[in-house]
């Protein structure tokens, strides 16, 4: 901790939150909110005279609210930086602290939050984890029975820098407990709350048991567990050491804790697998080894940073095995438990790994990004002809399009992130996206629907969520109908209505329109642009009398391989439920309307060529003249 504060290259900004992140690899702009401490950091010398005179006490979060701190205080004596701050919700404005501070004049009641922008080339996200609150589990009585404490409360009670100076007392009467139960997997490996294993709690239970046994050799300690998991170096040996210290390990997940209202002693009811029966044992104190869960603001952080989340809310890595430190956003890396629960050695290792990955970017002279940007065909833009439009600029999440009546719209390449929303929104087909042009995509659609199109499910997937979601379905070997034909574009925003009309015109049995969930969108609001269009399409097809389910809109994240497989199988079931003649009749009936709606597409440069090529390709694929 102190090393970080002393490091000449590291600028520690505490009591500071990230508000906004803009830009791209090598060129991020981050807005920080430096919360007001009401103490000038440069002047405060950490002497603590202010806290001595402060008459107000508030619970200290750092001690899990087991002890008070003053309204002006530091969370702990080794705080880095050692700068006091005032809790304005508690302060009564008696100004005794101002007097105590005296000539230092470090206290400033007029201080306000400061918003600052910082330019950085790379970001490492290391926002950590939070603790499961066991009070939602009525069977363990946490919150009702004073002598049932959580693991992190135990840490403070047994810590020489904690509120009791390391003297373990039970909260009901201040007595030293003689009999202690530690219960593992509280809120972990429990389908009601969190399905995951919280990784470090087995070792954590053993550590606390050993520490307490060393401090209180007569203490009777029992660890209740489902399985003991000690896979890392030196961990099994550590477990072995605990067993030799006469610490009891009972395999069984306690079903109930009851309390003697007079003594406040606790009775743990549990199966004991070794004995093959249910036991009820009396303890003075119980420690609940609670689950690790994502930070409460993980969802918010994920949308500020534009990074996605795995099931459960952990931040998602680019690839679970091959790129575990990277996020799908170039230049943003993950370290520590925010990516998935890990213990201290693993967190430290991942911190170093993230620094190395970030260094790879930061030491480069320049960084290459894919040129999948939008380009305007100036002669086709109606704005150039003096007509009001601006739909492209409205669709752009980055303000990358300059629009002025009388001039053709202009894409500022450096600002364009390449979602393709403007391309699909332009009603005059006056914009294209490099590497994802209309001609290229139409050629793909034609190839995918060349044979027996009525049996096919054409699936449009975005590059960042649904395409990797489909990958995950395959990696996990979730089977789905082989009639699916996938097509990748960068974002749901690029899924032009013309593509969907063309697919149905060609006789597609079903079409899937899928992208990220709104909060996961890689292009801020790209998904919303796509979602609004999808809504319009759904309504239009309903009006035309299309069988419901032939056009389906689903938001599927990179972590939802199971959902991808399920959706495709459901679409197959929809197709199977329509008699073939009825389906073919419906396709024929709707074809003229589809053709009419997609007619503008044919004016797009290169599209005629693509259609011409497609005829040739279809002939080759099917052996029939088209």
């Amino acid at each position: 901790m102190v090393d970080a504060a002393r490091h000449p290259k590291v600028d520690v900004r505490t009591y500071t939150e990230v508000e906004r992140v803009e830009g791209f690899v090598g060129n991020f702009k981050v807005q920080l909110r430096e919360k007001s401490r009401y103490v000038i950091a440069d002047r405060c010398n950490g002497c603590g005279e202010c806290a001595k005179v402060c008459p107000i006490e508030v619970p200290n979060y750092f001690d899990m609210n087991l002890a008070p701190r003053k309204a002006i205080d530091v969370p702990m004596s080794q705080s880095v930086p050692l700068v006091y701050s005032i809790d304005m919700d508690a302060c009564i404005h008696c100004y005794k602290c101002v007097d105590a501070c005296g000539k230092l004049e470090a206290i400033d009641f007029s201080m306000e939050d400061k918003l600052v922008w910082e330019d950085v080339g790379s970001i490492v996200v290391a926002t950590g984890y939070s603790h499961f609150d066991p009070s939602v589990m009525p069977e363990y009585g946490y919150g009702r029975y004073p002598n049932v404490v959580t693991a992190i409360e135990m840490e403070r009670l047994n810590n020489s820098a904690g509120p009791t100076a390391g003297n373990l007392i039970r909260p009901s009467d201040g007595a030293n407990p003689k009999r202690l139960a530690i219960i593992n997997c509280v809120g972990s490996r429990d389908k009601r709350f969190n399905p995951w294993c919280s990784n470090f709690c087995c070792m954590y239970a053993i550590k606390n048991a050993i520490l307490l046994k060393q401090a209180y050799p007569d203490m009777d300690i029992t660890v209740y567990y489902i399985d003991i998991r000690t896979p890392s170096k030196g961990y099994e040996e550590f477990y072995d050491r605990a067993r030799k210290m006469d610490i009891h390990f009972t395999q069984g997940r306690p079903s109930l804790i009851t309390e003697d209202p007079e003594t406040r002693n606790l009775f743990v009811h549990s199966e004991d697998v070794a004995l093959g029966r249910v036991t009820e044992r009396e303890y003075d104190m119980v420690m609940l080894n609670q689950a690790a869960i994502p930070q409460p603001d993980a969802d918010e952080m994920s949308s500020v940073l534009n990074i996605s989340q795995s099931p459960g809310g952990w931040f998602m890595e680019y690839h679970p095995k091959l790129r575990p430190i990277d996020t799908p956003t170039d230049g943003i890396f993950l370290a520590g438990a925010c990516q998935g629960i890990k213990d201290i050695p693993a967190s430290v290792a991942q911190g170093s790994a993230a620094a190395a990955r970030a260094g790879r970017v930061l030491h480069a002279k320049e960084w290459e990004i894919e040129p999948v940007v939008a380009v305007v065909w100036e002669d086709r833009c109606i704005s150039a002809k003096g007509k009001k439009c601006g739909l492209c600029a409205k669709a752009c999440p980055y303000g990358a399009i300059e629009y002025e009546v009388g001039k053709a719209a202009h894409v500022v390449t450096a600002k364009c992130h390449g979602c393709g929303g403007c391309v699909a929104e332009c009603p005059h087909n006056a914009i294209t996206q490099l590497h994802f042009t209309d001609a290229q995509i139409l050629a793909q659609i034609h190839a995918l629907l060349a044979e027996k199109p009525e049996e096919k499910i054409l699936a449009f997937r975005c590059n960042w969520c649904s395409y990797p979601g489909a990958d995950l379905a395959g990696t996990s070997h979730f089977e789905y109908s082989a009639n699916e034909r996938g097509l990748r574009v960068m974002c749901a925003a690029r899924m032009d209505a013309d593509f969907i009309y063309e697919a149905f015109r060609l006789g597609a049995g079903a079409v899937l329109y899928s992208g990220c969930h709104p909060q996961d969108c890689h292009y801020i609001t790209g998904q919303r642009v796509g979602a609004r269009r999808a809504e319009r399409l759904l309504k239009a097809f309903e009006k035309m009398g299309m069988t419901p389910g032939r056009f389906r809109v689903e938001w599927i994240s990179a972590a939802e391989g199971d959902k991808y497989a399920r959706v495709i199988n459901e679409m197959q079931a929809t197709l199977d439920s329509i008699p073939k003649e009825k389906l073919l009749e419906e396709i024929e009936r709707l074809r003229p309307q589809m053709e009419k709606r997609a007619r503008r597409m044919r004016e797009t440069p290169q599209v005629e060529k693509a259609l011409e090529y497609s005829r040739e390709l279809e002939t080759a694929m099917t052996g029939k003249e088209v």
Partner: protein
Amino acid sequence: MAGDNGNEELRIGVYVCHCGSNIAGVIDPKVVAEYASTLPGVVHATDTLYACADSGQSLIKEDIKKYNLNRVVVAACSVKMHEPTFRAVVAEAGLNPFLMEMANIREQCTWAHGHDPEGALEKAKDLTAAAVAKASFLRPLDMIKVPITKRAMVIGGGVAGINAALDLGDQGIETILVEKQPTIGGVMAQLNKTFPTMDCSI
């Protein structure tokens, strides 16, 4: 049939990967390659045991020269896996990296349709044909080069964040370590000794 970039004749090479038994265990890559050889613009199509291995990469590079290929289609795994690999391969042979297109016949075909080898084969042919179709309209593109601000930010001052910031600092990179609480340290600072060595946490 001309390509997208002028009057150049299309000369597409198609490589269908076995990926050991990952693909070849469900479908016959040879059949897909033979099929691809009949598609317009395709001048050479073959199967290869591991397209991403040295031998597979060398084959593609040699063929680009031998058959004067101007587009390459690799029917193998996900673009998330090997698009950078095959872009680099064609670039080494002097082709613009954006003239390479992949068909995902592993994650999105054989791995998901092990129960239906016939359906998987038909799908693999279609996906390969779609990649050939797209390849026909690919244009050479240049990467956009952006400058780098040599400064880093670490969000979160727990043990992982502190360590990342120190390592970045030691690399000579100016680093801002942002922590929302009044002190850095995170959960680790709250702990009383740590396993398995029982040393102090701060």
